[in-house]
């Protein structure tokens, strides 16, 4: 164990080396490491955020699709109802029209039959007078037998 001035020399060298490391080596390296750690942290956060946003967008899209489907179904439903309504209305209209026309036709027929019967009645009186003249061989005065004729006509 030979102690001598080497100790002082080595202590100075050690002190200088520490000072150099404190000043020139440590700060840039530790800064780079911490900066990188921060970057990685930010990157991970961004990835998480993006994943969450993607999930949100997915669920939103699914929601919108569901809603659109529901709307489409409602529209179709309404269209179907309208179509049914239109068809129903057309049917009732047609039925109404038909019955109206039928009633009109029946009225026509009735009035025609009535007229025909009236004509027939008028002709029956004439025919009966003509028939009676033939049978009696003489002119029958329609006025004298008017009561009889009227009774006959009424009997038809």
């Amino acid at each position, binding site marked *: 164990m030979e102690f001598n001035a*080497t*100790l002082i020399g*080595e*202590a100075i060298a050690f002190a200088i080396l520490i000072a150099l490391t404190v000043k020139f*080596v*440590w700060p840039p*390296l530790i800064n*780079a490491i911490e900066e990188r750690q921060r970057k990685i942290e930010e990157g991970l956060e961004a990835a998480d955020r993006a994943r969450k946003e993607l999930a949100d967008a997915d669920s939103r899209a699914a929601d919108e699709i569901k809603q659109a489907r529901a709307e489409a179904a409602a529209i179709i439903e309404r269209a179907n109802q309208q179509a049914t309504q239109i068809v129903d209305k057309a049917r009732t209209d047609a039925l109404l029209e038909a019955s109206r026309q039928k009633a009109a036709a029946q009225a026509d027929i009735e009035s025609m039959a009535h007229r025909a019967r009236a004509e027939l009645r008028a002709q029956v009186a004439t025919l009966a007078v003509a028939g009676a003249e033939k049978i009696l061989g003489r002119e029958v005065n329609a006025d004298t037998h008017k009561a009889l004729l009227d009774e006959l006509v009424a009997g038809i």
Partner: protein
Amino acid sequence: MSAEAGGENFTQYIQHHLTFWNAPLTQTGGMASIHVDSIIMSVVLGGIFFVWFWWFARRATSGVPGKGQAFVELALEFVDGQVKDAWHGSRKVLGPLALTIFFWILFMNLMDVIPVDFIPTAAEATGAAHFRPVPTADVNTTFAMSLTVLLLSLFFGMRAKGIVGYFKGWVSAPFTAKGILMKIVLAPFNILMALIEHITQPVSLALRLFGNIFAGDLLFMLIAGLLTHFLSLWFPLGILGYAVWSIFELLIILIQAFIFMYLAVTYIAMAQQQH
């Protein structure tokens, strides 16, 4: 070569390898002299450490690091983690201090596993009378470091607590009392404890490193000496022994560098902690 002559040469060989390149600073020499070999080796190795780290620190990027930067960062983060365990305050000085201690000691210790004759032979060819290439096998180097650590612990302790507050810690701990009388009675014991603590810390720190590396170095010398001076008998065993001891010594080198770093950080952290 007779065994006796071989033995004499062997002793000379070991003694030669144990002698420093001593340069007296004054006529009388003695304490006022310097071990040129220790100074040269430690400065060169410290320079290699600094230039290596500084090279990558200068172009350090926070983006994707290159292989060199990644390795340097790995070393730095390892040291930083150790310091973080021992001290929870700022690591602006303690971190680089630990890094310097670890790598400087590691590099100086590593000179141990370079075959014992390589560097001395090269140095002696350029004019040195003796050359010991392992600076940590020189008590001056290890004590220089441990005493610097002691000074730093005093400095940081006083900076953290104030000069009065720091020495109050010397007087009032580890033995504590409530009454003022008991405090005065216990004060001398506390001062004695503090003195012992502050003497044993640097001495144990320095001697542990010195002893381990000196012993390893000496064993290499012995194996190499046996190899060269008792050739026929020792050569195969010597080669094997040298290889085995190199592997074992690598472990010691690493562990001693780590222990010195860890204890230095612990001592400085302890000086700053509030009791």
